[in-house]
Each structure stands twice: as C-alpha cells, then as structure tokens.
C-alpha cells in the first residue's frame, strides 16, 4: 500500500509532468488563461491519461511484449522461444494510435454529454492527441512497470501512474490559471504582457516544484 501512495505522490508532485519533466507544455500555456477552462482541460487530461495508460498497457502486455501472455505466443508459439515475439519496437507508433483513438472518443463523448465543456476546450481537446505528456506517461509506464511480473500489480501501478500524472497536470494548470487571472489585473510592462509573463511565471513555478526533488522516488 505504501508503495502505491508513494508512487502517486511521486508522479503527481515530485516528477510532475509539466514542471519537472517539461512535457505537455502546449496546453499548459494555451488553456491556462481561465480557471474554469483549466479545470476542464485538467479533468480531460486525467481521463485521457488514465484511459491511455490502461489501454496502452493492455496493448503492450498482450500484443507487443515478449511475455507468456502475448496473444501471438499463445496462438502460434508452439515450441518457439518467447523472444521471437518481441514487437516492442512498435511501442511508440501503437501508443500514438491508441491515444488518438481515445481522444476522438472523449471528444465525441463530451460533444454529446457536456457541450459547454466541449465548447470551452475548443481546439485544445484535439490537441491532447499531440500532448506529449500522454504519450510520455504511456512510455514511462512501460519502462517502469512493463516488466513487473504480476499482471494485477503491473496493471494497477500503470493506471495509478496515469491517473497521478493527470492529477499533477490538473494541479499545475489550475495554479497557473489562478496566477494568470491575477496577472491580467496587474500592470505588466508592455514588452512582457501576455505569453512572456506567463513563461516567467511558469519558470518560477518549475523552480518551486524542484523543491520536491529527492522526496520519495
């Protein structure tokens, strides 16, 4: 149990995707202007990251990895070594495919069920497709837990890491949107108004998050 809590804190705060790994910066800057939108985007990312983790884990475990569960090994394996069924070189392209499909699905779902959120996310929802944090979490999962022996444990940790990554994203984008809403009221020198000031704030936030470094794993 302790290792699960540590894992969650580690991915959400210590190894935060935005401020420690510097992944997913496009939506971080693009959708952090208003708090409401930021929360919407954060929730969408949590959902997509969790789903993508689960889906990519399943694809990896049962299609790509050279393990006893590989479908091809089970069906065509008779007598041949398991290492013949190593398709891990397809990781990246298959994960991109999985994520793209998931985002499409989320988009359709939101359009039907929560139109106001769909409207406010606008172009950024399709952009989750190219959000490297999502691909990053999928690849990171494989690296961290791909080789864990127990199926249940491997799956649980993978999904938790995806969920935690999304939560970390939500926390940071929400903090950032609060800062930027305040910034709008401030008198910023014309040369720094808008994106430059946001970048400076993001840099300071990253410094602050570096304070977590060394905690846990």
């Amino acid at each position, binding site marked *: 149990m302790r290792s699960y809590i540590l894992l969650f804190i580690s991915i959400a705060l210590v190894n935060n995707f935005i401020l420690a790994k510097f992944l997913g910066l496009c939506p971080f800057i693009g959708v952090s202007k208003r708090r409401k939108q930021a929360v919407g985007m954060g929730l969408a990312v949590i959902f997509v990251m969790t789903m993508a983790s689960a889906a990519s884990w399943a694809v990896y475990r049962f*299609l790509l990895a050279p393990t006893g569960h590989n479908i091809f090994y089970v069906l065509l394996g008779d007598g041949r070594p398991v290492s013949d069924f190593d398709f891990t070189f397809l990781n990246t392209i298959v994960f991109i495919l999985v994520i793209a499909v998931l985002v499409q699905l989320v988009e359709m*779902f939101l359009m*039907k069920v929560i139109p106001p959120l769909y409207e406010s996310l606008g172009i950024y929802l399709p952009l989750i497709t190219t959000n490297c944090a999502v691909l990053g979490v999928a690849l990171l999962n494989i690296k961290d837990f791909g080789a864990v022996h127990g199926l249940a444990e491997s799956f649980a940790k993978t999904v938790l890491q995806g969920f935690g990554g999304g939560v970390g994203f939500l926390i940071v984008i929400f903090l950032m949107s609060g800062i930027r809403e305040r910034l709008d009221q401030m008198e910023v020198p014309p040369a720094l108004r808008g994106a430059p000031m946001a970048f400076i704030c993001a840099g300071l936030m990253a410094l602050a998050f570096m304070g977590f470094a060394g905690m846990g794993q």
Partner: protein
Amino acid sequence: MIAPVIILGFLGLLFGVGLYIASRVFRVSVDTRIERVERALPGSNCGACGLAGCHGLAKAIVHGSAEVTACIPGGERVAHLVADIMGVEAKVVEKKVAILRCQGREVADRFIYEGILTCQAASLVHGGPKECRFGCIGFGDCARACPFDALHMVNGFPEVDEGRCVSCGKCVAACPKGLFELVTLSKLVHVRCVSTDAGKAVRKVCRVGCIACRRCEAVCEFDAVRIENNLAVFDYEKCTSCGMCVKECPTGTIMDYRQSRKDLGLWPVKAVTGD
C-alpha cells in the same frame, strides 16, 4: 516483417470499427443553418466581429447571440444573405473605412534603426526612429496585417485603398502607434495627426502636423472641432463635413476626402434600403 503489418492492421481495424460505433452512439444533430450561414460569410476569418472566425460567427448568429449584420467586412450584401437564411429583416449597416491619422511622409529620422523591420519592434526602441513620437514609423505592419489588400506602402508610407477597405479593424490592432480609426464613409473631413506636442515642437519635425492654432475651432459653425491637448479633435456627431476647416487649416492637417471618394464612386453614399 509481416508481424508489424498484422498488428497495426488489426489495431486499425479494431479502432476504426470502435470509433464508427461510438460516432453512432454519440451522434449530435447540428443545425444545418450554421453551415449555410457560414457559406454566406466572406470566409476570411478576419475576426472583425469579435468571434473566433467565420464559423464562430455563423454559430452565434444561428443561436441568436449575434445580429445578422454582425459581419462588418461582408457589409450589406452578406447581411441580406444571412438575413434570408435566418428569415429575418436586415437593419441598415453604415459602411466604415479605416482612416490613417498621420500624413507625416517626410518626417526625418532621429537615429539609425537597425533592428527588426517591423513597426512593432521599432516602436519599442525609444518610440521608433522618427523625429515625431506620434507618427507613422513606416515599416508597414498595417499593410501586412490587411487581409483585404486595401493597404499599400507607397514610398514607405501607408495608403488606404478605400474602395477595398471593409473596416475589419486589423490595421487598427496592428499599428503600434494607434494611428488607424474606423470612421463612417459619410464623414469626409478628418484630422490627420495625433501629435499632442506643442505647436512649435510639431512644426520643427513635421510640415503637416497639427500645431493647435485654433483656426479650425474658430471657423467651425457647428462647434464640431475642439483643440484638446494641442490637437484638433472632431466631434463627428456634430460635424457636417462642410469643409470650412480644411480651407482654414494652415498646415493642411485637416483633409477633405470628398474628391478622392467621388473618384472611387464611394461618395455620395448610396442610400441603403432595409428590405
């Protein structure tokens, strides 16, 4: 060699079918008028309506949050087309044009500027290289911003082609000196200077700048010109474009657009009918 093809093909098929089913389950019926209105709009996505592109405006019109006349570049013609689709009557839209509030063509440079050749960048360096802090820098940000090819740089100075101008307001946003203003076409007389320097200082750097001599103020019968902060300012509500101040202005700062608009066939403004 064959394995990746099989794996990706299998996944592609699976996802394709899955998405097809999902699109059936989550189908949202879209109002067909949105598409028709969007087709009637100019489609240049200029943003003059204040919404994100023509699609955004089409949606807003259909949902009732924008007027059918909201497309400024489209003017009367588009307003009528849209009104037809929406089944309402279009109200009168008065055409506007962009006026350049400077004619300091021959203002000398204060220093040699060697930075990026845009007005935006140049204006950050001590307010630009020109002797006049208020006037046109002349690097053509406005001409580049104009999506309708209505602004041209002629000898390093912008000229508005009023026949093409649709008052989208891109130049207003692009000019770091704020020299453009959108004014109704029926107003023919404009002050082409924004300098609030004292007359003497203006005279030193520019032959055609406003020196706040107050002669326009004195000659105006309609009380439509005022000197505020060393600058002649028009009250267009009162101005009748009679042209008395144009004759009186010693520097030629106040300009009459009557003849040029006549030549272009823009004036007299044709009466716009509402139906």
